[in-house]
């Protein structure tokens, strides 16, 4: 009891998720096998979802799981599996590329750290922890259908524009699938 009592569970989980997010993100950059990269990315994004849950943003956390871990990454892994050719499976990075990457990424990391430490509110004492409840999700759902209770205008219009995007994407995807078939017919005729 004495040992457990001194450990703040929230903080413990924060460090756990933060470390695994950063660690697996690094692993994505370090490994050269594309399937492993996809797997490490899954773990990194899953840990990010954990951070969102800890922050009380349970809706964003769930979306992170459903969209990234559930949708995008499964698609990515299937894409890799279906198109896997030995020369694309493993990506060798040359020393020069490592140096440039380290310089750019390192500089950006330094800027981010500097900026993060410059926010006064973040170096002060942490605010009281707010427990996650379902009302946030209700508010987001209402805002997406154009109703906002806290004074702003909802997100009806962006939501509609997104549906136009989806139409365009469907069109492009349909065309991609169709040309493949036509090309194959042509090559069949010639072959």
């Amino acid at each position: 009891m004495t040992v457990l009592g001194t450990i703040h569970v929230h903080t413990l989980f924060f460090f756990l998720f933060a470390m695994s997010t950063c660690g697996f993100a690094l692993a994505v950059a370090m490994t050269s096998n594309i399937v492993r990269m996809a797997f490490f990315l899954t773990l990194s994004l899953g840990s990010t979802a954990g951070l969102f849950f800890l922050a009380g943003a349970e809706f964003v956390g769930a979306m992170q799981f459903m969209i990234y871990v559930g949708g995008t990454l499964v698609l990515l892994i299937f894409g890799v599996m279906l198109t896997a050719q030995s020369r694309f499976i493993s990506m060798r990075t040359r020393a020069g590329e490592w140096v440039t990457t380290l310089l750019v990424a390192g500089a950006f990391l330094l800027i981010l750290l500097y900026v993060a430490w410059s926010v006064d509110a973040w170096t002060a004492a942490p605010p009281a922890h707010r427990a996650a409840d379902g009302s946030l999700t209700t508010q987001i759902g209402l805002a997406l259908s154009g109703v906002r209770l806290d004074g702003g205008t909802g997100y009806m219009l962006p939501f509609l524009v997104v549906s136009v995007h989806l139409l365009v994407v469907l069109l492009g995807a349909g065309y991609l699938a169709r040309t493949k078939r036509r090309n194959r017919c042509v090559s069949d005729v010639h072959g």
Partner: protein
Amino acid sequence: MLTDPRTIAWLGPEIVLIAAATGIVVAGAFLRGSAFATMRIIAAVSILAAGAALRVGEANHWMTTETGEWTGPLVCDPLGFLVRHLALFAGLLLTLMLSRGADERDGTETLGLILFLTVGAMIAARANELVLVFLGLELVSIPTYALLYLGRNDRDGSEASAKYFFLSILSSAFFLYGASFLYGIAGTTWITAPEGIASIRDAVSRDPQPFAMLGLALVVAGLGFKLAAVPFHFYAPDVYQGTNHRNAAILAVMPKVAGLAVLIRLVVMGLPGVRNEVWQLALVLSVLTMTVGNVCALWQTDLRRMMAYSSIAHAGYLLIGIAVGAAAVGDPLPYGGVAASVYYLCVYSVATIGLFAALQSLGDGSRRVDSLDHVAGLGVTDPWKAAALAVFLFSLAGIPPLAGFWGKLTLFTTAIGQALRGESSMTPWFLGLALIAVANATIAAAYYLRVVGYLYFRTPPATSADLPSQSGPAGGLAAFLAAFLAAFLVLAIGLHQGPLAEWADRGERGLRALEPPPAAAVRATGPQHADIADRRGSLREPPE
């Protein structure tokens, strides 16, 4: 609070276009083959109808007032009015310039996608909310990916579409990352808002913390890609060269229209709190962009590659206006940087689309006109199209009295004006900017005039197989019509630049009316200014 009904009413033209585009795409699935000509007419008519809806809906409004209206997600102001007209006109020219042979097979999809991306540019032109801004920009980009893929099916074409796709996604990620910082600072997605309502502009002005600068840098990086400004220009030459004239025209114009409008609204007007960083960034980008673009264009022999570098250089000129506009935000004096930039955008867009339309009309369907040699001696073999090409090239080079000259003149004079009027620390910077811009205009004249030299002072290729243009309208009578329309407009704006300049000016004044008036300036001015201040006051009532 529900969505303001005016928001929907203002979207009339966009709704017309989306309905037409959806109809064309769906009908095209059933009417293969012969439907292209009809569909093209439907698309052109729907663009004209959208233009009419725009005029009916808003023109009366602008007769009586200069200032805009605000509903949250959208701002209805003269700048949006002008840029939406430009997007519609560009969409009309692009619809006309589809070639008969190559584009006919996928004609309905192509037409639908062009209408969609016109809508994207129109949304981006007056979105006042980060989410809507991003969606508008993406509605320009996503159809472009599909169009690049539809354009050419060879190896170069695939390389061009893949390159554009990946780099464009990267730039969208930059923009979103930056936008998320801005949202984090303000806690709202609204860029500007009436007093008493939280907005990004207020939050950043109140407390310009390092986060705002980080957000600014990332947003500018994302928009720099749309404009093809220099550190983000790498895709342009290869992509333009690897695709066809129509796609090159889209790439050269539509992302720039949307990107510049967003740059003005979000960066110049939305972040006055970090205005010093904004003008310094825009100034450096401008100098780099125009110099690299113009110098690299000098030794190109492929026409589209040359035009790619030329479009990079013109992005540099556009950024001059942004730098001046940002440096003068909050300045009570009239400044005109934003107006000059918008004016130049209109002039550049018309001339560039016209140039590609003229090149398109030269082709005979089976072969394209790609390199300088292909247009040699065109002045003899096809004098009308050569004349149209020459008009566009002279305008882009900035030869008086064509439209491009007035555009450049306005930009350079605003830079000098800012050097003379602005804070003394700005003077050397803006004088240097004006000098470099003038030097660049001279370099640019060299490569544009070289093409004119090929048109008129080279003998045409001897064998008929090498002739760039065959008799008959196979390359597209409609493309020639588009080129003719654009050439007419370039001449008309050049000879009578008043109306467009006035609208560009009103665009800037409308933006400034939405910004909080500097208290000292209002007190110091006479009664008619107090009247304007009153109207501003009434405008900033929150909509119910």
